[in-house]
């Protein structure tokens, strides 16, 4: 047991902890300047996030799409591709699920739900195929194309809900999906659906694929050492192409689950930022599926906590986004901690050296 504890690499945990601490410190500057005691506010936040059934359910609801989008970011990133287009693929998935949900009538739930989700998956994958083909066939930078395609997805779905799919002249929105297409909710009092269960299962599947399968191995080899992969008979282009398609499919699924589980219809003001926050959460989770799962749960906790703080005080709910961005910033700048802590590092090295020398002798 002692050996097990010694073998754990504590560094990531220490870094995450220090990042959290620093973010909270900086956040408290805002609160003090608004005349609040940061400790009270953070306590309020914690209660709003994790204490009480309603708060917990609300956090889970917020976490659901983020788990999917962070997985979508992860798989592409593993092959060395930056899918900034998760946001747009999510929109395409949501609108496709909405269409399948309100236009296919008379199906039983057991067929209607999977079918609508399948529409979402296909829509997301097809939309991701555009930057994938451009990148792998014509060598066009995927970061630029996916950013552009995000705007196109916003405008295209906006056009659809304003004209062809508009329910009534009253508001730019689609009809509600049929009961048979709605994801069952876990409780009556909140919007959290079985989507959260699907999301957790997906995170575990991703963990398994990355850890245990040949495909997961190939994506890593391609991302880490592209010319080595090619040399070893693993096609970097094909692997990264599949990575991008899966990424788009999962992003589409995120949109589908969000629509069929929470909103039931596509409104022009469909929530934005789920894709972008997925990128941040993938970072926060240190690039692993289970890490991202916990990061998503943690962040949505902060989110619902910040909501509570917003109701009670005059501190805006954007506090949660600020804290997330700060944390990701500190984690990305992890080298900084070595600089802040040179003495600690020196001490560790000395110890390692001595241990190593004794072993060699």
């Amino acid at each position, binding site marked *: 047991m002692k050996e097990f504890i010694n073998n754990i690499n504590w560094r990531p945990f220490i870094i995450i902890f220090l990042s959290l601490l620093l973010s909270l410190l900086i956040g408290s500057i805002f609160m003090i300047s608004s005349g609040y005691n940061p400790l009270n506010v953070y306590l309020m936040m914690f209660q709003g996030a994790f204490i009480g059934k309603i708060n917990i359910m609300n956090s889970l609801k917020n976490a659901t799409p983020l788990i999917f989008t962070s997985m979508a970011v992860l798989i592409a990133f593993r092959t060395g591709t930056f899918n900034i287009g998760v946001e747009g693929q999510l929109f395409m998935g949501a609108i496709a699920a909405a269409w399948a949900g309100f236009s296919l009538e008379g199906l039983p739930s057991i067929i209607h739900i999977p079918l609508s989700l399948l529409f979402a998956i296909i829509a997301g994958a097809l939309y991701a195929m555009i930057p994938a083909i451009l990148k792998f066939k014509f060598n066009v930078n995927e970061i630029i194309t996916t950013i552009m395609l995000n705007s196109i997805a916003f405008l295209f779905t906006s056009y659809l809900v304003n004209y062809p799919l508009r329910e009534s002249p009253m508001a730019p929105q689609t009809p509600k999906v049929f009961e048979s297409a709605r994801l069952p909710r876990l409780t009556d009092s909140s919007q959290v659906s079985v989507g959260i269960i699907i999301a957790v299962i997906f995170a575990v599947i991703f963990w398994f694929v990355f850890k*245990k*399968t*040949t*495909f997961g*191995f*190939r994506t*890593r*080899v391609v991302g*880490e*050492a592209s*010319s*080595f*992969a*090619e*040399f*070893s*008979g*693993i*096609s970097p282009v094909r692997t990264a192409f599949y990575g991008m398609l899966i990424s788009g499919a999962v992003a589409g699924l995120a949109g589908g689950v969000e629509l069929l589980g929470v909103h039931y219809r596509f409104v022009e003001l469909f929530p934005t930022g789920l894709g972008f926050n997925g990128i941040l959460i993938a970072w926060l989770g240190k690039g692993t599926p289970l890490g991202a799962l916990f990061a998503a749960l943690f962040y949505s906790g902060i989110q619902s906590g910040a909501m509570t703080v917003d109701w009670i005080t005059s501190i805006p709910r954007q506090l949660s986004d600020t804290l997330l961005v700060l944390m990701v910033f500190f984690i990305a700048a992890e080298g900084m901690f070595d600089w802040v802590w040179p003495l600690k590092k020196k001490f560790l*090295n000395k110890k*390692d*050296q001595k*241990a*190593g*020398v004794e*072993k*060699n002798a």
Partner: protein
Amino acid sequence: MAYAVEMLGITKYFPGVVANDSVDLKVKEGEIHALVGENGAGKSTLMNALYGLFQPDEGTIKINGEKVVMQSSNDAIQRGIGMVHQKFKLIPSFTIVENICLGSEPRKNKYFIDKKEEYKSVVEISDKYGLKIDPSSKIRDCAVGIGQRVEILKTLYRKANILILDEPTSVLTPQETDELFKVIRNLVNKGKTVIFITHKLREVMEISDTVTVLRKGKLTGFKPTSETNENEIARMMVGRDVLLRVDKKAIESEQKPILEIEDLVSTDNRGLVALNQISFEVKPGEILGIAGVQGNGQSELIETITGLRKIERGIIKIKSKKINRFSPKSIRETGISHIPEDRVERGLNLDATIEENLIVTSHDKKPFSSMGIFDFNKIEEYSEQLINEYDIRTSNSKNKAESLSGGNMQKIVVAREIEEDPDLLIAAQPTRGVDIGSIEFIHKKIIEARDQGKAVLLVSTELDEIMSLSDRIIVMCEGEIVKIIPGGIADEEELGLLMAGIVPDTLQSKMRREAK
């Protein structure tokens, strides 16, 4: 005679290793001092300490009898120490003069460089030490040998009296090496002191006055060169007797070739012709060596055969089957395996574990995986077996490849590629940057493969390696085959000329030349 450099009791720890263990280095003024040792023996550590790149944990350094502590390479330069690194640190788009003066240009005033003065002083130094260059040509247009001269001039421009040359001959042809040796002798005649790092024993014997040998961070030999010999130095380096020549059986009967290449044409990364109508074949049980100065089409040839580079024209056949448009994977599956020249870029994934690196080419086959899911027990078992068999020095098969020394990294590549049981083994620079002990082992493995009836295509810039292993030798120059000669009768001088593209008309003309 006074010592120019005295390093006494130098000890340097790195996490987990003692890179230098109370090492002494005493270099007399005005001598050529060879510092030899296998990779990882601590040569670079010692020299980096002398050049001020880091400070030793214990020990003292004296320069010209004066005890010094050097905080940075600037301190070292101030004290007249200059270093020529193995990898040149030159800017290709700058001229030779600009490269030499970079960072310490003579100035007209605070803001402007005095170009005339710059040019004048470079020409002066180059004349004084007999280092011929064209001062205004750009580095990118220069041969490797010239680049090296520029590096030496750079140190001289900064008034170096003690020059450290780190494996200077590894990039040179035999003729260029001779030139370099002339330059070194000239420097010493003009009062400079030279520390010459190498692992080529022949060069030690030829050029040095004194030799210091390191093994595993410890001093194992310090002698005047005239009082020792190649075998003794090799023993001090490795710690046991080393076979410097390779033993091998003679080639067997005529058989159908495994690899056939006809009129092969392909281009390099810039789109220029790199291979110009190459034709040859490799038979089972034969090692075909390809000699040539680096950058004369050898890399492109191998990339084309292994499917990593497009074929412009011509035919490549494996076992009489045309493989022109095959993917790298299908080419592997027809029975080719490949030890690439660049083990860090192509041969290994340094971020991955030793296990992963050993199975990567067959990770999707049984027993390592079935239905796309790995069997980690089988992988571990197999890796442990190869680690034993190929003597890969590591504490755990799950260590990252980057934790190994160059020689052990190369053994991973060699193990993986030979265990594929190929019909054709392509070995490109299989022993570059590898210690003597590992070289001997890798050579043995290559010969074993040949004796089992495999065809071997060996590409190397080390003439010794080509001459001792090959049954036939192809000499390449500027993308063409200059000549194909039987391995047994090749001599180094002839190969050197052929590598430079000079074809001695006949053997007779050569004899006539010798008679003169």
